[in-house]
């Protein structure tokens, strides 16, 4: 059982590393908004008609009329 005297501090140190990362993530605003990202996940990330929409819609409207 003597190994416990060594293993437990190691385990606690590993835990401390995770706590450190948690604090780091929180300070970086990772948990500021808990509602939106869960929904954003459901959205498809398709880019729509890149070249046609890239500029201004008024432009496109004009083109349509022509």
């Amino acid at each position, binding site marked *: 059982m003597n190994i416990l005297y060594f293993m437990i501090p190691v385990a606690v140190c590993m835990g401390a590393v995770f706590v450190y990362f*948690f*604090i780091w993530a*929180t*300070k970086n605003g990772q948990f500021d908004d808990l*509602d939106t990202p869960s929904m954003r996940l459901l959205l498809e990330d398709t880019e729509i008609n890149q070249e046609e929409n890239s500029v201004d819609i008024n432009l*496109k409207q004009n083109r349509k009329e022509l």
Partner: protein
Amino acid sequence: MAAVTEKTICCHCQQDIKVLSIDEDGREFCCPGCLSVFHIISQNNLEQFYQYRETSGESGWQIPEFRDENFSYLDSEQIHRDYIPERDGFKTMLFYLEGIHCIACLWLIEKLPQLVLGTDYAKVNLSKSTVEVKINREGSFSKVANMLVRMGYFPHPIFKEDQLESLRQKEERTLLIRIGVAAACAMNIMLFAISLYGGASGTLAKYFGYFCMILSLPVVMYSALPFYHSSLAALKSRHINIDVPLSLAILLGFFISSFNVFKGSDVHYFDSITTLTFLILFSRYLLRRVQQNGLSVASLSQFFDRGDIKKVENGNIISIHKKYLQKQDHIQVLPGEMIPVDGEIIEGKSSLNTSALTGESGTVPAFKGSKVFAGTENIESPLIIKVEALNEETRMGRIFEKIERLHQDQAPIVRLTDKFSRVFLVSVLLLASILFLYFSFTASVEIALMRTLSLIIITCPCALGLAIPLTFTRSIASAAKEGIIIKDETVVEKINHCKNLYLDKTGTITHGKYSVEKIEHLQPLQAQLAHDEVIYQLEKFSKHPLAKAIRNELSQTERNNISLEHYKEILGKGVYGQVGENRYHITGIESSSDFVQLGLFENNQLVSKITLSDKVRDDSKNLIKKMRNLGLNIFMLTGDKKSNAIKVADSVQIDHKNIYAESNPEQKAEIVEKDASSIMVGDGANDTLALKLSSVGIAVQGSIDVGLKVSDVYFSNPGLAGIYNLLKLGKRTLHTVYGILIFTTLYNLAGATLATMGLIGPLQAAIIMPISSLIVTAISFYGTKGESR
């Protein structure tokens, strides 16, 4: 074209169509706003929006009323220099968006970079209804804002000058870190604690003991700090709040356990105190989140202030931000806009709606040389105003300043839980010292210490710290679903003790704006046309508020789409048009303090009379009766004339002796302040002081910004229904809290007795404590079950 008689659904917002707009493909919309939004969406192949909206389960919302705000001030150098610093060639800005609902909105808005050139990203925060937009050097915030308007949202730029938002963010993050630290330590301690309960002994047990102590240090010294601060603050003001017994339990538990560890005993409570800290912090975090969700309203005030001002400079009109306006400047105020300053009219003739300031329902004529005040609405035609007082110097500003001052020296209210914790703490401490002294003399100090400790641990105020915040959390969340936004959870408790309900008349009992009372047709038209149709066609394009009211009233009438020619609107005079040979016009014929009469003329002959007045809301009478049945005394407070007040009071059955008419803001406040159990409901600036000084201040939908700021509750649905629901919710919540308190008392009595008799050891205490917490949590869930569906 076919007549529109049956109900049709708008292609964009899916609401019943009242005012029809049809696009070239024959699709039907309720308003030009929806039509333009639909076109933006379809032209850019964003139809997926509608799919997402369907799957989100939310359908049929209205887009915010279309307002013509000029955002070009967002590109001015001044603003950029003062508020929007550039970083690596990029600039970011936060907008608060009106009209944002669900996942579909999220999807649509985050497509901004593809719609507006130079936009790097748009990041939506649904719970705060904000979007953060980042642009590069080619981008422009005014273009972004205009695009958002065209998408059907209304953006309010947020200037980060006040540090409030970032301070709140920091506070929230710190709380989260405290919770995280407490959780990590508590879970690790639990590992050792379980092996100790399981029978670890000898050097290993001693080793574990030290480990637990070291691990609980961060919890006691960092995570639990808010408890100590709050109890110190309470003790300083000679109060006792729930945090006092909590802090005591945590500190005492820690010191006694450490003492035991040093002494070599393996009886300690590090697991209990750390878990307790974690759970209570967590429940408070939940409460905070639910309070903030519907409610950036506290900081909403700045949003409702219009940012853009049309300044007249060398004959040109330029858009600037309010912050850069100076005295003696000339500004233009269009019909339908709020006057932002105190000043003098130097050009134009119009009528003003001063109800926000005075509570009078009628309009007041204004002409060159008239003094105007901030917070009044221009009704008829454009005005040029010379600025004489700005911001705090305006009459409205002075009222607000007074409110701010009041806000600072307001005593905190004593909550039910605080009262309970006072009794609780005193009895536990008393019992503990008696117990300690008794056993020190009769048995040994050792036994005395053991039993005292068991008593303190077992009577740990879990219920108060955990279950009661949870109850309030669930109540506030369910209220928010009904459109009642509660800023302060104590309201739910306080409202039960209030006996007198003071209602503002204009805007609260009534709609607060003109609507059609009746239309009389004096004689048939020469042309084979319906009067209503002619009226509708004439008023169709006018921006005048009365025209809007008439359109709403006539939206259901049959329309044959007669062709109206030579349409013109002369501001301050009326609207003109011609159908075939006949000339028609609508103009005002009579107006008094409580109604306006318009006439429809055919070839200069009066054919119809339209009477408009500020009507009582349909449900007011019924709800007032219901609330009276709940045992409330109903009063009416108004700045309006007595005759108008009596007329409205009669229609909703409020006693004449309960009417306070012709009262100015200060008088209103005085009446409410004298009454120790008053609920004040109002909307205008003239109510704000009273809202602040009442026990519970409620702002109804459409209230002005400061109303929202000072009130405790805000209704996002119009009318009085919210008050009735709030009263019922308050009752249910209070009953649940009582249930929890009764259980806690019984549990603690039993626990204390057993601990005193020495029947409960450390192991039993450790098992019983979480079970009692579970039970109170269950009571809390059961009691608020009906509400959160």
